[in-house]
């Protein structure tokens, strides 16, 4: 179980000595991902979803709040003591091309973490080789044909599989997939998504999916939770299918309205929500963060709404005027 409470992260923009501008990347985010569970963070670029993912994977520090991994709070620990905890959480990067060292073969890539593992547990060299073949088979690659290859000899999809195999060498509890399929050919994306889902089911690894493409978030499984993040704040949170089918926050609704409609197969939703302006991360920080773009702005929006449950809606949301709207495209066959 990995939880976070009140995570705050502020980036100080460098480059200007006199006027260091501060960017609030995260403004008190709570999350909880149970063992073997799944969650996805969605939002526009710059909303803080990637920063949050990196904090969870131990690659980024945070200013306030607490990350708890299996009951151990991280903030009190020294970096050396934190390391073994964060090792249970492995990051799958967006770009499989830079995630593998071009000068090392697949064998070398897997051998290093495995031999470390073998040393810690007192296992033999044979175990390393066996395990290397095993993790490759787990991600759907043929060990015999890929072990001796360099990354440039593999396709994008195969590389991403090797990256996942490398993460599996340390028996992780959770995989953090940051836009893990956006650089992969369309016809192969689904294979990677299915693999992540499959690893969840077979190995009980939890999956955290970070994406701007809401539809891919469904692949983590229907028991997964969806976190919609806007300018460092979670604005809607609930079961994946609930939030997608019945979003109540205008921001979630605009995200879903923006998804292209496959005309000929689908018809668009009846009440699409279009934001009044484009994202301005430097905008004013008082009141509701989305208010300046929100077509449904009301009197109370000068205050900051908190994530809460209100009557009639199964999900949590941060809006004073929640309302269901039919925004997503539906298949023609459904009518």
């Amino acid at each position, binding site marked *: 179980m990995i939880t976070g409470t009140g995570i705050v992260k502020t980036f100080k923009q460098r480059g200007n000595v006199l006027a260091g501008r501060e960017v609030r990347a995260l403004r008190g985010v709570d999350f909880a991902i149970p063992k073997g569970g799944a969650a996805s963070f969605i939002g526009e670029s710059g909303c803080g979803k990637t920063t949050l993912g990196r904090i969870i*994977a*131990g*690659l980024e520090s945070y200013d306030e709040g607490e990350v708890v991994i299996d009951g151990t709070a991280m903030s009190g620990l020294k970096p050396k003591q934190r*390391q*073994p905890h*964060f*090792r249970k959480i*492995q*990051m799958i*990067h967006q*770009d499989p091309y*830079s*995630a*593998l*060292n*071009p*000068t*090392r*073969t697949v*064998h*070398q890539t897997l*051998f*290093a*973490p495995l031999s*470390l593992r073998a040393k810690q547990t007192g296992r033999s*060299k044979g175990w*390393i*080789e*066996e395990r*290397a*073949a*095993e993790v490759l*088979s787990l991600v759907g690659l*043929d*060990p*015999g044909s890929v*072990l*001796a290859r*360099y990354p*440039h*000899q593999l396709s994008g999809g195969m590389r991403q599989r090797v*990256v996942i195999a*490398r*993460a599996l*060498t*340390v028996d992780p509890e959770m995989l953090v997939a940051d836009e893990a399929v956006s650089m992969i050919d369309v016809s192969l994306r689904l294979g990677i998504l299915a693999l992540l889902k499959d690893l969840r089911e077979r190995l009980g690894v939890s999956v955290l999916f970070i994406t701007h493409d809401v539809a891919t978030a469904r692949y983590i499984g229907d028991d997964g939770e969806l976190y919609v993040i806007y300018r460092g704040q979670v604005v809607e949170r609930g079961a994946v299918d609930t939030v997608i089918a019945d979003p109540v926050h205008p921001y979630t609704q605009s995200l879903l309205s923006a998804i292209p409609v496959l005309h000929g197969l689908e018809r668009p939703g009846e009440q699409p929500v279009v934001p009044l302006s484009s994202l301005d991360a430097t905008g004013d920080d008082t009141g509701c963060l989305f208010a300046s773009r929100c077509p449904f702005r009301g009197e109370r929006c000068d205050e900051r709404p908190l994530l809460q449950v209100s009557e009639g809606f199964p999900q949590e949301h941060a809006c004073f005027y929640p309302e269901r709207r039919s925004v997503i495209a539906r298949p023609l066959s459904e009518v």
Partner: protein
Amino acid sequence: MSATLIPESASAAGTMRRNFWRGVWRVMKRKPSRMAGVVIVVGFAFMGVFGPMFYPDHLPGDINQITKPPSWEHWFGTDPQGRDVLALVITGSRYVLLCAAVTAVITVVAGTAIGLFSGFKRGRWDTVLMRITDMKLTIPGLPLLLVLATVWKFGSPMQMGLVLGLLGWGGVARAVRAQTLSLRERGFIEAARGLGLSTTHIVSKELLPSMAPYIAMNMLISVTGAVYAQVGLFFLGVLPYESDNWGVMLNLAVFQAGAMIQPNALGYLLAPLLAILLLTLGIVLVVDAMDEIFNPRLREE
């Protein structure tokens, strides 16, 4: 799964090494100029190591053959003491090449180590090391060498190489640091950290190989730099003629044999110059292949 054959890691490493050399061979074969470069460089190395063994410690001079132009007997003529110029070039090469090798090794080892450490650790260490590097870079090399020459005789090529090496690592350190800074942001370095791999592993196995072409190029180029520097010093005559080498030859050719006005002594002047030119050419031709040798993609293509 059990059906797949997995080679033992020891033999796997052996295969890898064999593949590497096969790749190197392929890269070299791609352009005839590279092969020529290798032949030249290997030839010079051979000359430096074994050449002097074929000659007595003190080359015999023939009084009847003083400062002669090139002939069949003496390909580059003779010097004012009647010694064969080609023999002088060969016996003199050991000092020059040994010094250059020492310089190259010191430059690259010190430069790479400091650059890597600085770029990888960042923070306070980085600041301190880079200030030192900057200070070192501001020291003008030639005047310092001139001053040093008054107190130190540089009788052995090791001493000479040591001094040149200690003067030369600054640029490499800066460049390696810049490379390290950009590489450490790459996904695979971050992943290695996330997997809990040791810093030693990350630096030696992940970072260093990515920088290998760079380092190898710097090493080869610093060889030529060292050759120029020492030959220059000896030519200027700021160092005593305690040893035979190309710089001393040039100096004697110009100032003693009067090669500028004496056509007979032209061979004496040209022979060491040609040697330097040829060595530089060889190195430049080999450097051309470095990128392809250390980049698996270019190597295997």
